[in-house]
């Protein structure tokens, strides 16, 4: 919406400028005395999503059109293209448009020389016809950052040098580095042949990979934010549920058991739907993000409850007895003796639960929480390529693969023995120890 306004305003300004220029010319000077005048100086729109925009670091074309009077005798035209904009002279097109309606096209013969940013056209014959001279420069790349590009020009007519006045600037939209990289990739032969394969183009288009990366990265941060809140908040919920399930009071046991059974027995997807569509109907409006966190927290609380309960039961009864025999209360024994051992034991299971929870944040996409899949989906919708989903998959793997590896390591370590720094006697007794 905003950008349409933006471009409209810019187009209007351009029209106004050109109009003002011609009015000034017509008003100030009589036609025969009027020398070569700027008619237009434009860049060719080259943006994919906005058909009227000219963007940087993307191939474009500069068209400079000037008006000539009869007998002007223009011998040479010099275009100065500003620093930062590159151009090619390969497909240079220089044409005279003559006749009443300027419909007669005539190729102009010339010799071109390039001097830095100056493009010099020496005409074989001085131009003496009344009409419009059009110069098209191809292979133009405007600066990536964009800005208003001012092309300057001067000409030699009848031996005298003149400056071409009133050349409008070309408004260029800046693009990001990744967009620029994507456009660069698009030009590469290997990318082009890669993309000729339908499968590769659909799933692994390098240009879309590059452009979707920063967008999907936002989604990655959102997904991380959801689990980074939901997981730690789920731990106290789970502990509370675990204690309730092991309570000697039937009521507590009943409440916790019912809750755990319901949450574990129904799909998380359904729980998300109920929370996101049910609560607003009930008049409770919680913003998407916190609601997503709460649902994930309550869900993983139920799963972690079972992990904790199993962990507490796995700590030998003798530990509690030893603690109690030293005069500790039941709560002290639980807190200082049982729970620390329980946590150490359940770390692999907790890591797995974290991995599951992280992957399950994708379900929140269904209710409009902006997370990884949701961000990827927006680009899929605009490009028609599946590649952003593949990028999203990579973002999941970046977290899940190392964590699974750590889990495996922890499980192995739980079976084996601790290696830690020891006195020389102990170290020599254990030759596998790394420290001397």
């Amino acid at each position, binding site marked *: 919406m905003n950008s349409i306004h933006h471009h409209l305003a810019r187009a209007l300004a351009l029209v106004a400028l050109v109009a003002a220029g011609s009015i000034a010319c017509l008003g100030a000077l009589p036609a025969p005395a009027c020398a070569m005048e700027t008619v237009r100086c434009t860049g060719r729109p080259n943006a994919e999503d906005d058909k009227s925009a000219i963007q940087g670091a993307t191939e474009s074309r500069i068209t400079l059109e000037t008006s000539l009077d009869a007998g002007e005798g223009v011998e040479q035209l010099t275009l100065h293209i500003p620093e930062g904009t590159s151009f090619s002279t390969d497909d240079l097109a220089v044409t005279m448009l003559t006749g009443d309606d300027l419909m007669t096209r005539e190729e102009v013969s010339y010799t071109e020389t390039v001097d830095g940013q100056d493009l010099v056209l020496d005409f074989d014959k001085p131009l003496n016809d009344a009409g419009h001279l059009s110069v098209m420069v191809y292979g133009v790349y405007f600066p990536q950052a964009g800005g208003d590009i001012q092309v300057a020009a001067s000409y030699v007519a009848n031996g005298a040098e003149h400056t071409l006045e009133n050349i409008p600037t070309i408004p260029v939209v800046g693009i990001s580095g990744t967009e620029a990289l994507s456009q660069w990739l698009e030009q590469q032969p290997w990318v082009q042949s890669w993309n000729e394969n339908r499968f590769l183009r659909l799933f692994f288009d390098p240009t879309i990979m590059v452009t979707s990366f920063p967008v999907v990265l936002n989604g990655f941060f959102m997904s991380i934010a959801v689990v980074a809140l939901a997981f730690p908040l789920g731990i106290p919920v789970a502990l509370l549920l675990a204690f309730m399930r092991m309570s000697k009071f039937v009521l507590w046991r009943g409440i916790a058991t019912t809750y755990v059974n319901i949450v574990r027995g129904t799909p998380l997807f359904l729980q998300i739907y109920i929370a996101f569509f049910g609560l607003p109907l009930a008049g409770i409006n919680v913003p998407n993000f916190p609601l997503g966190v709460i649902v994930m927290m309550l869900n993983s609380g139920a799963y972690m409850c079972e992990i904790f309960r199993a962990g507490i039961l796995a700590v030998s009864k003798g530990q509690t007895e030893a603690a109690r025999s*030293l005069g500790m209360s039941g709560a002290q024994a639980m807190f*200082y003796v049982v729970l620390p051992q329980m946590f150490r034991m359940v770390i692999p299971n907790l890591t797995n639960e974290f991995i599951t929870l992280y992957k399950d944040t994708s379900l929140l996409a269904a209710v409009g929480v902006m997370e990884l899949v949701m961000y990827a989906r927006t680009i899929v919708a605009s490009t028609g390529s599946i590649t952003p989903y593949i990028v999203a998959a990579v973002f999941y793997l970046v977290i899940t693969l190392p964590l699974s590896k750590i889990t495996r390591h922890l499980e192995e370590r739980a079976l084996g023995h601790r290696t830690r720094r020891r006195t020389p006697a102990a170290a020599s007794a254990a030759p596998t120890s790394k420290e001397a």
Partner: protein
Amino acid sequence: MPDTATAPATDPILSVRDLHKSFGSTDVLKGISLDIRKGEVVVVLGPSGSGKSTMLRCLNRLEEPTSGQIIFEGEDICASKANVNSIRERMGMVFQQFNLFPHLDALHNVMLAQEKVLKRSKEEAERVAREQLARVGLADRADYFPDELSGGQQQRVAIARALAMDPHVMLFDEATSALDPELVRGVLDVMRELAQGGMTMVVVTHEMGFARDVADRVIFMEGGYIVEEGAPEQVFEHPRSKRTRAFIGQVAS
């Protein structure tokens, strides 16, 4: 407390009256009565399943007695208003399986209850812990974790842990039964020293040699009853009951 008198003449520090304990329909203790005086070392012998460990665990209410009375330092510990935590503070217990806290090193195993139960400062608890570890010969193992210690060392740390609470009575529940034979001695030496230092001890064991050398009194249990009770020489050399005689004959052979 009349603790100025010599040991045998004082009132019992621990007195058990008609103690019964059943698990479901199984009667494990069928009426145990026992007095233990301050400074006395009582060794409880008997075949497995005779109820000796259950009896010991009832003394600090790790097992809830079904009926009967246990008076410890003048207080009925089975009373509903009895503060079981403060009673346990004054009764150290050593288990067959050591039950050291595996997530803490030896030093912190000994420090934990001092800080949490006795509310000793960290410095005080550490000082006491090092003292007790030195007493059981493990001053140089303070920063070892239980799984880095041998069974015998673990059991000595467990003894130090109990002693750090300044208990008035120490209960030993088959403290050497889970140890490899070559490690038993170190633990028994610590127990022997403790006995010589005047600690009141109730020791459930199969170590006949220890019973003979250290015990002031030996109790022989079978089938939930005390079958025989007396000085070690008397029980070992002239057992009155033929079941005692059979048991001693079996173990000695």
